[in-house]
């Protein structure tokens, strides 16, 4: 039999296993005021939240689609099911999670990682979080890690001043949509001076066909506190469109450090239109590690607003675009204060006609002095059919600014493949080695388990490269 050539045809293994749909509640397709009210009722939310949802819906209807970036004309939001509640309540023990859902997360390695190397885990299945836990010693230190629904009820005073203040429902069409139909996600609060030694991880799994996932992640790291948060996402493959429009709001207070690591691994029918932002106070630090795999279309530009003096950001991103994929990714950094610094390292790979587009914004606000930034973008194309673009926009209004920028776009070299093959390494493995080496600066930033996952994803993406 002929070997399958394209990744789209390749069995993506554990990521592609579809569970029978067993829901407690499914909203109708599309978006109406009634649907929004019903979702809010189903969630037993406070009234301010329902009103916020309805306001967002109005804004959504009026906002045009973005005229830049990906072509979204085929995206049919009216046909998306916006809310799917799995047939379970949130559990704090895996034993209480329904068997098929539990198995899904077992296959994705979540409970195992929890036992080995995590301080807490949240697992979302379709629209709701089905499992959440945190180590007791962290609770004793005042760390909160729970799902957003619970957080709104139990910690309303913490949520209300922050919720959709960094990403507002007026920012763009999909932030408005998110405001209207958001569901699930995690809330993390790290009190002043607390350093969380092991990472917390939330995993978002979209199982339902033709559905949307709109989780909201809100993290507050108080003064001089420290946290590493890991977000994972995946969905099995369907022939119909799925939509992911999550929002991540990160508040990094004075002297605090937050590392936010993501490996998004969507199926090829997914529109991934995700918004992530952080605001960093004096001497605080945000570190992004962002892996974008899969999806049909992605538009994702995690943003760092360096608001306080001495604040800093680091962005490390990897994007892998294969057949039929257009991945428009990058990062935005706003230096809004003096003595702020940023480092951006982006790597993209494209193959089989895939298109990887780096879009970045680096802005130095008026009055900001002694700003330092280093931007480094590299792309690797594995064949002649694939495309790669780099559009780094640099807008400087401040003084005494030191900015370094380097962009490299290259094709995988026949000479290098020949060299590796001359040492007994097959062509496929030679390519995989080169690609793994290309992303090595990123994998080495990840905890071991995730570095392994990233390498496995790369191998999966590379399968069938040799026609």
């Amino acid at each position, binding site marked *: 039999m002929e070997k399958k050539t394209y990744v789209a045809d390749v069995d993506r293994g554990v990521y592609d296993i579809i569970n029978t749909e067993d829901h407690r509640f499914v909203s109708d397709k599309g978006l109406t005021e009634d649907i929004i009210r019903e979702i809010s009722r189903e969630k037993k939310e406070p009234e301010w939240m329902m009103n916020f949802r309805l306001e967002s819906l109005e804004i959504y209807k009026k906002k045009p689609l973005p005229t830049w970036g990906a072509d979204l004309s085929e995206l049919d939001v009216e046909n998306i099911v916006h809310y799917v509640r799995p047939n379970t309540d949130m559990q704090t023990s895996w034993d209480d999670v329904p068997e098929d859902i539990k198995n899904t997360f077992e296959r994705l390695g979540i409970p195992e990682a929890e036992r080995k190397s995590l301080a807490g885990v949240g697992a979302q299945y379709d629209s709701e979080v089905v499992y959440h836990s945190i180590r007791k010693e962290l609770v004793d230190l005042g760390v909160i890690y729970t799902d957003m629904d619970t957080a709104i009820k139990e910690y309303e005073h913490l949520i209300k001043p922050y919720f959709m203040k960094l990403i507002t429902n007026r920012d763009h069409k999909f932030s408005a949509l998110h405001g209207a139909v958001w569901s699930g996600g995690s809330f993390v609060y790290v009190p002043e001076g607390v350093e969380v030694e092991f990472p917390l991880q939330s995993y978002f799994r979209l199982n339902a066909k033709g559905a949307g996932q709109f989780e909201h992640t809100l993290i507050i790291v108080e003064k001089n506190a420290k946290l590493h948060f890991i977000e994972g996402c995946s969905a099995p493959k369907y022939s119909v469109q799925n939509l992911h429009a999550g929002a991540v709001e990160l508040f990094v207070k004075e002297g605090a450090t937050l590392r936010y690591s993501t490996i998004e691994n969507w199926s090829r029918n997914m529109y991934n239109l995700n918004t992530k932002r952080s605001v960093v106070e004096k001497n605080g630090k945000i570190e992004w590690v962002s892996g974008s795999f899969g999806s049909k279309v992605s538009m994702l530009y995690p943003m760092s607003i360096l608001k306080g003096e001495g604040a800093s950001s680091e962005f490390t991103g990897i994007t892998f675009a294969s057949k039929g994929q257009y991945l428009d990714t990058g990062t935005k950094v706003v230096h809004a204060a003096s003595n702020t610094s940023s480092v951006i390292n982006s790597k993209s790979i494209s193959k089989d006609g895939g298109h990887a587009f780096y879009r970045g914004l680096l802005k130095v606000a008026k009055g900001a002095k002694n700003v330092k930034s280093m931007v480094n973008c590299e792309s690797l194309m594995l064949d002649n059919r694939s495309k790669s673009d780099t559009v780094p926009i640099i807008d400087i209004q401040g003084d005494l600014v030191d900015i370094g920028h380097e962009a490299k776009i290259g094709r995988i*070299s*026949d*000479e*290098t493949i*020949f*060299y*590796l*093959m*001359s*040492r*007994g*390494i*097959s*062509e496929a*493995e*030679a390519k995989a*080695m*080169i690609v*793994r*080496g*290309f*992303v*090595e*600066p990123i994998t080495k930033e990840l905890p071991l388990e995730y570095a392994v996952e990233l390498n496995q994803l790369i191998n999966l993406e590379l399968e069938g490269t040799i026609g």
Partner: protein
Amino acid sequence: MSILKVNALRSTADGQEILKGIDLEINPGEIHVIMGPNGAGKSTLANVLMGHPAHEVVSGEAIFGGKVLFDMKVDERAKAGLFLSFQYPQEVPGVTVDNFLRTSKKEISGIMPMLGAFKKDVKQHMEMLDMDQKYLERYLNLGFSGGEKKKNEILQMAVLSPKLAILDETDSGLDVDAIRVVYETVQKLATKDNAILVITHYNKILNYIKPDFVHILVDGKIVKSGDLSLATEVEEKGYEAFKKSTDVNGAA
């Protein structure tokens, strides 16, 4: 049985003929040196034998270890025991020397090398080559000096123990001390079962390595073969004398 037997080999690159009928036989236990002026086709011969994609074999054949060499893919040739020390070794960011050596050894030997024994073996060869152990953790050839790259090639040769190692101008870019270390190591690696083909355009390496055969390659052909004395002849007369002999052959 010979390790390599090349018959009337012709090759082109970009439509241009470079090798114009090469005959060469290499037996176990032999060290051969191919000398010739720049542009004669020495590196091309090395690349064609290894299977560089930019070169096309137009006619002729090569039998390597009893198999038809040109039917084999590059990695299959390596697995069959062919090795090429590159004139310009490629830099591969993100892949450590250690990882690369281990992967190659596994592919070529067909089994995962025993960690302890492998480490010991590598360490021993690195000492022989006067290479710092730190190189194992460095990315393959990235930022290596010319000399370090060449030592790294010979380290691979030592670890992979090929049947036939082709050394393509391994001496170029090396200082005197490095040349000595490298070729003394090569000489030590020579056994009665393997063979080495050294490509060079200087004869100064002959202070450190003792070939059984010397071939003069001019304009895509081996114009003269002999023993070590041929190298002395080159030193005295230069390649010009041999170029003329091609013309004579051509006319004949």
